[in-house]
């Protein structure tokens, strides 16, 4: 160890002691002052603490004004609600006994009448089934590679029937079932519409993950998602069901309302913000944080696109696949994409990483289909994107007035695409890794996780030999694990980092353990913890991991 290193360690220890409330001697204080003035590393640390101490008194700004408005509104709503509740309570207390007696008498009379006139149970059930209209089941969203019964699926053209199997590769899909049931399927998942015409609708999750959000169902109707014999039955709610990679565990996460989970005769109620994990005969119930719920909500994100039954269809395809589509500044999926969208004017942006392929206004009317093709512009003469309106010739597509690189074409005009004159100011200096990184951080802060992942991947592709490219593997791994809930991908990124080695090995190993835990690979998780404890015995995480290891070994 060098003298400077020892000096820094000593300085750091003294500063920590002082922060914890200990009085330093005059000699120690003098050492700290002298050492810090001579060493940039100390200065960097002190600047961080100065920043921490200095800028709490921020001036009122737009965000703080919005906070005030939201707070006062919330306060008013809470007060009104509590006043209403109080009023309701008072009214209840004042129910006259006479009215109560009348009500009891009326119920008794009705019950007697029912006993005389009620049909047999079978007839009643039959009548109920007949009174329920046949459900409409529609594919309303398909992003990436989606198949129904082995055929590539397209919104508005793929017919779903009882028994249909929807399968996703890299992408996601959503179906809308009357009345107002949205079911979205994550990447690499398979779902069978087992019963959709009876009152007890049943969907079988064969592989992967499905999230659902549904309105309160009419009396007598229910929705169950069944995975490996474990049924998750909704009671007006939002929830997700996921099968572990090895297919052994069924994980039900309840986002809103209540869900009944279990085998036919052995069920339990799981309420909002709880997660049930059923593994063989063992069932565990744990609380889930908002962060852990986020990926399930994200899967349901596109459902806002078809809230209004009066809708149009957007079809987007081109090269490269996996280009991101943003409608009105919201990421709606990756291409090829086929989705219902609200009628009216929209702002559509398609981009490949940071490169904007389409940026234009889009106007759609009820029932029409806007088919949009895009392509990567050639380096010398950029190829414009092209738009074809198939079902509504009268529909209007407005190019943005300032749009230079996009041109509307009919399908016949699509090929060969004409070259546009080069923009004098369009030549932009390529982004540096630092700029990509700043972009990724910004996207993370804004909760745009898929785009952040794309930025990280761009760094790895464009700057493969830099230290940054290596270290972002850990960031990417964590992002894939926590926000994108793709533990397999996370494991790949983290293993990739650990194979190459680096100073983030400790963090990478912790994340790797979490990934294995998420995938319920108990034996691998235990082995990973063993390895971690050997390599990082003095880690701040060591105690928690030892406890986790004991639990794992106890379980097994």
């Amino acid at each position, binding site marked *: 160890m060098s003298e400077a290193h020892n000096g820094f360690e000593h300085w750091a220890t003294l500063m920590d002691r002082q922060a914890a409330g200990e009085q330093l001697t005059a000699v120690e204080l003098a050492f700290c002052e002298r050492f810090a003035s001579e060493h940039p590393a100390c200065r960097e640390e002190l600047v961080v603490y100065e920043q921490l101490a200095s800028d709490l008194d921020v001036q009122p700004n737009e965000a703080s004004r919005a906070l005030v408005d939201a707070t006062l509104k919330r306060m008013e709503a809470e007060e009104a609600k509590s006043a209403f509740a109080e009023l309701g309570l008072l009214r209840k207390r004042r129910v006259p006994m006479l009215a109560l007696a009348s009500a009891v008498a009326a119920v008794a009379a009705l019950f007697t009448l029912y006993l005389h006139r009620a049909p047999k149970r079978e007839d009643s059930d039959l009548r109920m089934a007949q009174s329920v209209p046949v459900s409409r089941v529609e594919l309303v969203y398909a992003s990436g590679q989606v198949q129904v019964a082995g055929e590539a699926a397209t919104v508005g053209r793929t017919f779903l029937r009882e028994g249909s199997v929807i399968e996703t590769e890299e992408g996601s899909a959503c179906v809308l079932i009357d009345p107002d049931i949205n079911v979205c399927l994550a990447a690499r998942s398979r779902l069978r519409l087992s019963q959709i015409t009876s009152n007890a609708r049943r969907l079988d999750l064969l592989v992967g993950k499905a999230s659902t959000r549904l309105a309160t169902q009419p009396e007598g109707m229910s929705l169950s998602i069944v995975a490996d014999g474990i049924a998750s039955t909704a009671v007006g709610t939002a929830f997700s069901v996921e099968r572990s990679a090895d297919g052994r565990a069924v994980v039900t996460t309840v986002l809103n309302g209540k869900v009944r989970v279990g085998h036919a005769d052995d069920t339990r109620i799981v309420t909002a913000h709880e997660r049930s994990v059923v593994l063989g005969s063992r069932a565990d119930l744990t609380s889930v944080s908002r962060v852990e719920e986020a990926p399930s909500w994200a899967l349901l994100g596109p459902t806002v696109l078809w809230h209004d039954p009066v809708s149009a269809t957007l079809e987007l395809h081109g090269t490269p696949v996996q280009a991101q589509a943003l409608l009105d500044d919201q990421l709606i999926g990756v291409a090829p994409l086929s989705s219902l969208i609200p009628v009216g004017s929209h702002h559509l942006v398609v981009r490949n990483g940071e490169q904007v392929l389409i940026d234009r206004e889009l106007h759609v009317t009820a029932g029409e289909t806007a088919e949009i093709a895009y392509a990567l512009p050639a380096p010398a003469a950029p190829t414009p994107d092209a738009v074809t309106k198939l079902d509504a010739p009268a529909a209007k597509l407005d190019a943005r007035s300032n749009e230079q690189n996009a041109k509307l074409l009919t399908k016949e005009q699509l090929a060969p695409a004409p070259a546009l004159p080069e923009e004098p100011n369009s030549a932009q200096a390529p982004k540096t890794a630092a700029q990509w990184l700043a972009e990724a951080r910004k996207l993370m802060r804004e909760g745009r996780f898929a785009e952040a992942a794309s930025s990280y991947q761009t760094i790895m592709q464009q700057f493969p030999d830099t230290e*940054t490219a290596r270290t972002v593997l850990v960031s990417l791994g964590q992002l894939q694990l926590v926000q994108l809930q793709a533990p397999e991908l996370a494991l790949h990124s983290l293993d990739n980092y650990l194979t190459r080695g680096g100073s983030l090995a400790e963090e990478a190993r912790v994340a790797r353990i979490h990934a294995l835990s998420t995938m319920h690979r108990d034996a691998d998780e235990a082995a990973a913890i063993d390895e971690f404890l050997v390599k990082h015995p003095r880690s701040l995480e060591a105690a928690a991991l030892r406890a986790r290891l004991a639990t794992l070994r106890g379980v097994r």
Partner: protein
Amino acid sequence: MHSVMNTLMDGAVAADLSLMKRVAAGDKHAQRVLAHRLAARVGRISQRLLRNRADAEDAAQMALIEILRSSGTYKDISSIERWADRITVRTVLRHARDQRRKPWHFSSLVDVESLGAAPEEPAQSEETARPVEDYLQELPAARREVLVMKHSLGYTTEEIAELTDNPVGTVKDRLVAARKQLRKLITRDARVRARDLEKTS
């Protein structure tokens, strides 16, 4: 001069007391004035204590409501800001506790977002490459909380212990652990920056 300062101070204190009495009496205008005065500070504290932005906004709203509802308890022994800080911290920590009821799951993940990801070119500031918020984001919740309470709000370890319902020893341990982790992040940033700089030059 001394007496002028005292008079001004007395005037400010009296104005604050009067404002708080009006808020406590349900004066809507006074509530709005107080909320505007504290919102930016409450928002910043909440953001520093919580990693998730949506949680921070939610907790900041709850803290402001709590402040407005507690205005009757204000005494002129400290500034409104210091008084409001304690309510903010308590409310935000309560919110944070509600959010993480699981003992070991993801909460212990250190967010290394951009940890080694230092800029390719020399940082604009010679002293730190990243804003302090970025570093705070990367600390586990318990450590971030004590660090913010100590270094942003200036509380003693005893005060932090009282606010967090933890023994003083635990607070000290967490504070030292937080500082060590922060130091590691800063040092690593500098090292990665230097390596990348070396490669590009």
